[in-house]
């Protein structure tokens, strides 16, 4: 029978804590860039101009259909050869997850925008608004409210996906756990504790999402996925 011993994990908990901060940092960065980029992609894809809509559609579909780990390797190993930059694990991860999440956010934005009744567009046009004005003043404010649950769900997916950065030696929670497991020869305790930390953080977040969803449902707003 295996004897569990968490003392080495507890003694080195600051390492895991730093890892968690690393996870939050890369998630935050990807959100900060991914959300605006996703909006731009969505608006471009919905644009009546084909030269805008088509490339945006391609970027969205490409980054949604290829594995994030392949994207990460490409940006980490291949991009610095193509353009002359000093590539770091953080930079590669930031680029990958910003673009990757923006592709998913774009679809959330798009679903939210097309879910708004046609009458809202017509009412905006009837008082003389141009398309960009109607989008900014009438459509988006309503759409964003409906998108909140889908957004938070995506943000949670993003946080889980950031574990991939461990494979290019960015010091996120999983990477730190791996280091610690090798150092202490206690992989069971370390990886179990790590899984629990992820669970607590992510499950906590998704409980918040469910609360938001319930409140929106009570206030009578439908939501989009």
């Amino acid at each position, binding site marked *: 029978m295996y004897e569990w011993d968490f003392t080495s994990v507890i003694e080195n908990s600051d390492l895991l804590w730093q890892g968690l901060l690393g996870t939050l940092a890369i998630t935050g960065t990807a959100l900060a860039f991914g959300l605006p980029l996703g909006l731009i992609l969505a608006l471009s894809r919905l644009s009546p101009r084909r030269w805008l809509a088509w490339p945006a559609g391609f970027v969205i579909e490409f980054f949604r259909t290829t*594995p994030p780990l392949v994207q990460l390797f490409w940006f980490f190993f291949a991009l610095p050869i193509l353009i002359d930059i000093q590539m770091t694990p953080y930079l590669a991860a930031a680029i990958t997850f910003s673009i990757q999440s923006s592709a998913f956010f774009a679809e959330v934005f798009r679903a939210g925008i097309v879910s708004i009744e046609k009458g809202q567009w017509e009412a905006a046009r009837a008082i003389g608004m141009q398309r960009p004005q109607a989008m900014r003043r009438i459509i988006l404010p309503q759409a964003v409210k409906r998108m909140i649950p889908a957004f938070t769900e995506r943000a949670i997916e993003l946080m889980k996906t950031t574990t991939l950065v461990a494979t290019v030696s960015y010091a996120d929670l999983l990477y730190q756990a791996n280091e610690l497991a090798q150092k202490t020869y206690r992989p069971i305790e370390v990886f179990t504790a790590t899984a629990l930390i992820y669970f607590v953080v992510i499950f906590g977040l998704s409980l918040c999402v469910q609360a938001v969803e319930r409140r929106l449902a009570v206030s009578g707003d439908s939501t989009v996925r």
Partner: protein
Amino acid sequence: MDYVWDFGSVWEYRAALWTGLINTVRIFAICFVTGLSLGLMMGLARYSVRRWLRWPAACFIEFFRNTPVLVQIFWFYFAFPILAPFEISALMAAALGITLNSAAFSAEIFRGGIQSIDPGQWEAGRAIGMRHREIMARIILPQAVRRMLPALTNRGIEIFKMTTLASAIAYADVLHQARLIASVNYNPIEAYTVVAIAFFVILYPIVRATYVLERRMAKGD
């Protein structure tokens, strides 16, 4: 941007990439079939009238949905072998992690599909004297599966993408092979570009098919 692309160096190693692709498909097939079957069982258990079935199923689903799949794979690769009385290969560890993760996600799809069926169908089943299990198997599931088809296809696509994580524990999937080729040849651009395009070419037609499916269902239902 005066880089000279040279796909010839990748072409030379096409046999290695092909082996990787076969391995990718192999682990995908294992995870897809076992993940969805287990997911169906979990979804049914989650919806069961018996609390001792419902509770563990809920815990399983929530735990595996709310932890990153790579953490699960690492756990099965680095931690589990110490507890298990047998050898754990990279394929087994990765397949375990991805399967359990997929089971949790597809359980929610099955549950949602089952709950989307009008309660009148249950009543109609009971009214002609069918038991819970019979109604589920003969009335509810056949209708629910049709509705769940787009979501399950999407899950399949996610699983296919997820298989690349197996390369992180040195399972020889297509990404792992590309990484080897890249390090031997110093041609990461071509190697990774080829893999990215391969995934896109394989998955995009399926993505399009789900769009068509979703649109048809939105009209039909």
